[in-house]
């Protein structure tokens, strides 16, 4: 129910953002809700992420505390995804590169890939995330912990196995990237495909001035 409520609220905000964008286009304003080519949605209030226990691509524990103290961009996907996941991760690297022109290195958001298909993802995850960005963090683990973090992100995924021994199954999943603030709360979402420069400008303003700006 909570998820549905959040989704509906996000949908309403998206509509508001589109309207604001249209209104601001002529005035060339550049606030988060008005940025051109950014399908970003700022939630009306931050949604705290519940505690979770996963591991990163190097095998080290990765928990809620690792999403605190800095901004994070969290994307949910799987390594056997040939189209949307690689494209989104490459986009995120392009956004990170643009952001590095706008802010100090220690202020840059960390980019986190939540791999929801641990059976197939675990062996590939380290090489997979490094392929897109040397600093990218891949996380995965027990299915109930993945489900917990996914739910906190208002995410959705489903392994579409036809049978137990199916190894070529597909995975349906949320396409949006969650923007997590240094308190470990989701404050915004960005829907792909996103243009790197305006998305970086949008995030730069969001990070510097906060969701209320």
């Amino acid at each position, binding site marked *: 129910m909570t998820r549905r409520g959040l*989704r509906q609220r996000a949908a309403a905000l998206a509509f508001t953002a589109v309207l604001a964008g249209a209104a601001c286009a002529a005035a060339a304003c550049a606030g988060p809700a008005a940025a051109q*080519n950014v399908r970003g949605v700022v939630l009306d209030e931050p949604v705290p992420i519940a505690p979770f226990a996963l591991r990163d691509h190097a095998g080290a524990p990765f928990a809620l505390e690792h999403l605190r103290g800095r901004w994070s961009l969290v994307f949910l996907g799987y*390594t*056997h*995804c*040939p*189209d*949307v996941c*690689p*494209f989104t*991760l*490459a*986009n995120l*690297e*392009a956004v990170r590169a643009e952001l590095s022109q706008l802010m100090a290195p220690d202020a840059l958001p960390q980019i986190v890939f939540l791999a929801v298909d641990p059976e197939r993802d675990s*062996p*590939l995850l380290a*090489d*997979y995330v*490094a*392929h*897109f960005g040397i600093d990218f963090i891949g996380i995965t683990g027990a299915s109930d912990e993945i489900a917990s973090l996914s739910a906190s992100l208002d995410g*959705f995924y489903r392994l*579409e196995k036809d049978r137990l021994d199916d190894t*070529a199954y*597909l*995975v*349906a*999943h*949320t*396409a*949006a990237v969650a923007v997590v603030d240094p308190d470990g709360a989701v404050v915004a979402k960005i*829907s*792909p*495909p*996103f*243009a*790197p*420069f*305006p998305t970086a400008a949008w995030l730069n303003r969001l990070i510097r001035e906060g969701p209320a700006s």
Partner: protein
Amino acid sequence: MTVRIVVAAMAALGSFATIAAPAAAGALRIEGAYVPAPPPGAPAALYATLRNHGERPVTVVGAEVDGFADAMLHASVHADGVVRMSHAGAITVLPGKTSVLEPHGDHLMLMGPQRLLNTGATVSGRFTLEGGGTVPFEAVVVAPGGAAGGRGDAGS
């Protein structure tokens, strides 16, 4: 009557498809094919523009790609914020039209990579047409994220 008998005889001999196929295969052009370099061991996607220069619809039903165990036509479908892939059984290109395989849309999924694909490498393969016949293509391997570094802006 005579024509009908001849056609029936050709179909019965299995030769009708082999006569029709070269015309369809010759009508389809594969333009700008590229493969974003995939991570090691992960599947890849091939994107291209399929252009039908002929006078009849051409239907692509599959492909074989060198260096991969399997290739399958897929479509990424977005609905209510969720993306899911589905097997696209066939892609029909109407006469004088194009069909574009592109990120977040129709694509050729390349599975079971048998070698590492680095940027600048070439991938060879053949699209298989309904009724028989194949159309060869060569795709260039580009940096992750797509061709020419500007793909990230293309969808907006």
